[in-house]
């Protein structure tokens, strides 16, 4: 990959940081900032409701992002695809929306199956649903390779009484192990389960395809886009009549004090003034990813991840999480006799930026390791030199710890 020059933060960075925290948030290419700035500088208006030129231009730019997203996640060529893309404030919002709207009438005859390796965003909303409605919340375990145990998944699906929702991450942020998502989708479909894929980490890294799922969620800020914006893909028909999660302006057809008629998908779920600049920036970010080529990104991140995993394995006292599985985009590891925040602090003192702690995925880390970890994570701009800097800085840190 040869994209570093697209990022002023990498070329002009005054502090020479090796940024290895892209799984938390990715850096943003200049073209995305330019696109966002153009909105504020040339047509800074609210959308949908205005008749004037700026409002029209803003509406066109905003709505044009739906087909951009649709193409990117391979929704196929149906003409209705705009109606399947809802803009949210992020992955977390998207999952809460499904838990509250799609599952509004679920109860103890229904079950939600998540995996052991989920991010809190894909755990807590389901716990809240369980506590509110009695839905059964089941956890499918990982096998020794870090893959969702399909046998266990099938057991859980078999035992379900009425409706099942399988909600799992395609690329869990606590393992970096790409799941066999097509298989998970197909197996779940055999049992008529609804499938929600958390694509927060995968959509920026692999070609995703929604043909094997019903819902796909991801965040703008992890795919080289702005903060405060996300996507919910929802297969046509699934959210047509559900009670909206959020209500207010622009998601209604007509309001009077007695009752209100809601708008149709996708606007039904986009209450209030949207993150207009954010959505427009997200569209540009996805186009930028397409310009780089998602397959090139996959290959580059796989190369970097292999390189980093091999290098880390050779460092004394370091144990990589699931060492025998290859990783995509991130490596999670721990250091014997050293607390993870100490390691991260000393790495930072050497201008190497990593994450430490429980990575918003406390259950798997507490259950499997009983301790916090360190995570180095990558973007398509990450270089092997940055990995070398990580290794050198790590070795130096361990002399102190």
């Amino acid at each position, binding site marked *: 990959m040869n994209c570093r020059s697209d990022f002023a933060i990498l070329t002009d960075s005054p502090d020479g940081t090796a940024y290895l925290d892209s799984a938390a948030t990715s850096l943003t290419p200049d073209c995305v900032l330019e696109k966002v700035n153009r909105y504020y500088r040339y047509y800074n208006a609210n959308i*949908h409701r205005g*008749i004037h*030129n700026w409002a*029209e231009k803003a*509406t*066109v730019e*905003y*709505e*044009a992002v*739906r087909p951009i997203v649709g193409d990117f996640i391979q929704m196929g060529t149906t003409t209705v695809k*705009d109606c399947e893309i809802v803009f949210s404030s992020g992955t977390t919002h998207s999952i809460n929306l499904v838990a509250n709207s799609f599952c509004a009438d679920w109860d103890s005859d229904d079950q939600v199956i998540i995996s052991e390796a989920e991010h809190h965003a894909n755990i807590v909303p389901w716990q809240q649903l369980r506590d509110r409605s009695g839905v059964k919340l089941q956890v499918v375990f990982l096998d020794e390779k870090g893959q969702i145990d399909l046998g266990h998944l099938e057991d859980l699906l078999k035992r379900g009484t009425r409706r099942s929702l399988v909600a799992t991450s395609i690329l869990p942020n606590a393992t970096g192990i790409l799941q066999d998502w097509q298989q998970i989708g197909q197996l779940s479909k055999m049992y008529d389960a609804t499938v929600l894929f958390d694509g927060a980490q995968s959509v920026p890294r692999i070609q995703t395809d929604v043909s094997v799922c019903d819902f796909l969620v991801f965040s703008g800020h992890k795919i080289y886009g702005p903060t405060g914006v996300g996507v919910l893909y929802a297969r046509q028909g699934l959210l047509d009549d559900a009670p909206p999660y959020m209500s207010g302006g622009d998601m209604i*057809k007509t309001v009077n004090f007695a009752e209100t008629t809601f708008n149709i998908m996708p*606007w039904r779920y986009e209450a209030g003034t949207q993150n207009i600049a954010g959505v427009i920036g997200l569209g540009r970010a996805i186009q930028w990813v397409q310009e780089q080529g998602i397959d090139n990104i996959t290959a580059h991140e796989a190369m970097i991840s292999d390189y980093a995993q091999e290098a880390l394995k050779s460092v004394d006292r370091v144990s990589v999480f699931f060492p025998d599985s290859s990783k995509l985009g991130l490596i999670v590891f721990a250091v014997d006799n050293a607390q993870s925040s100490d390691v991260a602090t000393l790495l930072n003192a050497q201008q190497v930026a990593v994450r430490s702690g429980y990575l918003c995925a406390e259950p798997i880390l507490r259950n499997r390791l009983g301790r916090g970890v360190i995570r180095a994570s990558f973007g398509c701009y990450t270089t092997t030199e940055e990995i070398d800097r990580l290794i050198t800085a790590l070795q130096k840190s361990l002399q102190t710890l």
Partner: protein
Amino acid sequence: MMITEEIQDIRQLLEDCPDDLTKYQTIIEMGDDLDPYPESYKLDELKVSGCQSDLWLYAEHHGDCLHMIATSDAVIVRGLVAIVFQILNDRPRQEIRDFDAALLAQLGIQNIVTPGRQNGIGSLINRIKLLAS
């Protein structure tokens, strides 16, 4: 005339206007020629939603063709309807179904082809295509 020719004609007419205001005046005048629309047809099920103004559309199959009448409380919408009718009214249904709405962009009128289905004349075209099938 072929659809594309109709579009070219209207485009020419609008292009000849010295400014945007005149362009809309021309559009409004075109609306004056719409066939009358009976009050009794102003039914909810004939309403095309998505505009700030009310728009009613009634259609019948005349043989292979689709014959339509429509009206609106907004005179600009009436004018836009007249334009759409000049292009599509009384055409064979197959031709209407195959019509590529993106062609309307050539007319250079803001709002006539709109993103999504929230406003403007886009929902009218969608409804017409539906009625043609």
